[in-house]
């Protein structure tokens, strides 16, 4: 079971949350101008990243607030938790200084 750190309530079991899929998918700015292909993209196409994935969760049985996380979809490690509306944090590791690490 995932242990998810809710920004408001702290670390809680996955069973308290619901999954919201890919984060940062904006509603189309000009819905009337979209063609069928663009609507399909918006409605049905989501990234299916193998690796670090930005996704939404809601703390359903806690504060009931939505938030974003960065999670590795292979190891399931959670790398960052950040608020809705914020930009995706940069989690690329800093270049090692010198050889020793």
């Amino acid at each position, binding site marked *: 079971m*995932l242990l998810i750190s809710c920004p408001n309530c702290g670390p809680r079991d996955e069973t308290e949350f619901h999954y919201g899929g890919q984060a940062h998918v904006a509603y189309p700015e000009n819905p009337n101008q979209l063609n069928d292909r663009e609507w399909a993209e918006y409605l049905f196409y989501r990234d299916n990243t193998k690796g670090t994935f930005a996704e939404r969760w809601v703390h359903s049985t806690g504060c009931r607030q939505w938030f974003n996380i960065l999670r590795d979809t292979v190891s399931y490690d959670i790398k960052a938790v950040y608020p809705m509306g914020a930009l995706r944090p940069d989690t690329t590791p800093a270049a090692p200084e010198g050889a020793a690490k």
Partner: protein
Amino acid sequence: MADLLPEHPEFLWHNPDPKPSYDAVIVGGGGHGLATAYFLAKNHGMTNIAVLEKGWLAGGNMARNTTIIRSNYLWDESAAIYEHALKLWEILPEELEYDFLFSQRGVMNLAHTLGDVRESMRRVGANKLNGVDAEWLDPQQVKELCPILNISDNIRYPVMGATYQPRAGIAKHDHVAWAFARKCDELGVDIIQNCEVTGFVKDGNRVVGVKTNRGTINTEKVGLCAAGHSSVLAEMAGFRLPIQSHPLQALVSELHEPVHPTVVMSNHVHVYVSQAHKGELVMGAGVDSYNGYGQRGSFHVIEQQMAAAVELFPIFARAHVLRTWGGIVDTTLDASPIVGTTPVENMFVNCGWGTGGFKGTPAAGLTFAHTIATGAPHKLNAPFSLERFETGALIDEHGAAAVAH
């Protein structure tokens, strides 16, 4: 001592090195990939083809499913393709000359609410109209067919009846893969294990080769049969798929005497149970909610399905879990597969079978082979095109297909 040992039996397939070029390359050596190669060779005379498998043959979802075979889907398009698959299952042991223990012991889908009862009766009616064997059972008939089921009203969601498909059942998944692999090998197909695709060679928008960890292979046509990894391959080829990969878990108990004569699925309390030929109770349920490529899921999913199983089958209370595992299933928004052409010329995709790929194996192979060989879909897979997400002609089996996905 050595001469007391028996001769090693014939291998079922060879392990050739990849040739520089093929007429078609199938990516993914699971059930669907092998079935596709088999029908390409048998029905379309394409024998200069290869199946590339990044791990070992049939070690992905083919090794991880709960082996249930049924065709009692609600919508016409689904009933047609799954019923065709079931008809192929019925003749394949003879055709492949391999008894893979296809056992038509029936599948029961329980109803626990008034909504379930109405949905079930509607589905029975739809199935009958589509030539799929289906009947409605009241709780007493359920008990007669599966005496270990608890049909009393002392549980949270009492059994109010069930749909029953007598021709449905289970098969031995590994043997199915080996049966296809042996026939493919006999027909001249190269089955290449430990060969991972790392990219594609394109001439404009046309695929002309496959890059692998064992070198580049030229090919006229490429068929993708990679289930949970379909999106990864599509990205390499430069297009997107409306697929989300999720972990799907299953478990087995230790071996028991035969106690469970059929297959029981419950959508509402969400567990499905059969007893394997060897004696293990085999159980599964729904996917983990989050996207995942880890071939493992969260334990509460296992815990909930076992709780459901013990309510329905009180006799299981003393059984032990021997093993749990996970596979990566490729789900679509309408819970129906995608079998057809792609935006890349000469590249074809068979994916999106989600939680139900095993039962579809023969029909996936048949229709996908037809699509690759002729460049156009078979009438059975024509509705399952990638374009349906643009046209809106979805085949919405969510909740309609006798199991929640």
